[in-house]
């Protein structure tokens, strides 16, 4: 039965608040400034636009090779990111802020676009986190999906865990489904990497090396744009594009 529910300052028509056996993933549109907040302390982002079918296309300003520009190395990262509060629906269909105490299943589809003029050795992360404003990766405490590529190669796709990652894929890889489970304050993720026709390309997973989140912490979604390794730099006007889809479901158990 359909229901009109309120939450997060908006009304939503929910067709079935209890049956999640078949649900659509939602697209991430980083140009939607009413949803996504950009943090770019070093002015690394030159332009952002939506391109093609829900691809976020980003053109960069120059960025030096530094651990601080890489999401999966070291302890500090002040690379640009977008974030938004993570909401889920409760058993009555109300939107509620996801918390670190919750048990959540977060399903992500991550794909790099092919309309790229001149990319760099990039590392793009998308997942959930505790403090998207922090430049200390353990405080930010993010986990989820990643793709990374050299300046000339097809990306590898996989799992992002706080300040590390494991990715895989052949030259036919075009994206990945990454499922993250949050329970007891820890996010564990696994990835199935796919080809353009949706068939299997590869798979990977990685144990999360972060500590369990403190209780009652608000959770956010985060998209981080950085370099593949700490030594990779970005030249002005190098670009990338990516399409991100996700669904977060709050699980209730005995």
């Amino acid at each position: 039965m359909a229901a009109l529910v309120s939450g997060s300052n908006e009304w939503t028509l929910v067709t079935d608040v209890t049956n999640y056996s078949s649900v659509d993933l939602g697209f991430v549109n980083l140009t939607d400034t009413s949803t996504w907040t950009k943090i770019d302390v070093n002015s690394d982002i030159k332009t952002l636009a939506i391109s093609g079918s829900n691809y976020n296309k980003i053109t960069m300003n120059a960025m030096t090779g530094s651990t601080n520009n890489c999401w999966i190395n070291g302890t500090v990262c002040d690379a640009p990111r977008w974030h938004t509060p993570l909401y889920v629906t409760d058993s009555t269909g109300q939107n509620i802020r996801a918390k670190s105490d919750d048990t959540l299943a977060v399903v992500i589809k991550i794909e790099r676009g092919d309309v790229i003029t001149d990319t760099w050795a990039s590392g793009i992360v998308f997942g959930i986190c505790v403090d998207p404003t922090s430049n200390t990766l353990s405080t930010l405490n993010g986990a989820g999906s990643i793709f990374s590529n050299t300046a000339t190669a097809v990306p590898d796709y996989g799992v992002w865990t706080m300040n590390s990652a494991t990715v895989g894929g052949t030259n036919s890889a075009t994206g990945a489904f990454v499922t993250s489970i949050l329970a007891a304050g820890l996010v564990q993720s696994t990835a199935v990497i796919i080809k353009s026709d949706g068939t299997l390309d590869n798979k990977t997973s990685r144990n999360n090396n972060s500590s369990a989140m403190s209780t009652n912490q608000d959770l956010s979604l985060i998209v981080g744009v950085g370099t593949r390794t700490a030594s990779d730099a970005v030249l002005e006007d190098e670009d990338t594009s990516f399409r991100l889809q996700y669904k977060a479901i709050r699980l209730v158990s005995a």
Partner: protein
Amino acid sequence: MSNIKVDYEQISINSVSSADCNGNDFQIDAYVIPVTIPLDELSTLIGNFNIEDPNSPDAETCLEITRIILSALKIKIEQG
């Protein structure tokens, strides 16, 4: 005879970005090979190992562990 094993079915080719046991960051395209070390062998294995001694562990232990890892790697590469 050691019961150290490679979890052969879990060998994968991945690009790993992480840190080593000295806290040094690394990023490398690699075969990832899980090695299982029985708990009941720890006292012998670690007890006989001196991290400060460049000649430790002994040749027999080196050979045994190296052969376990390289055998798994060689077979994995040959099987594709």
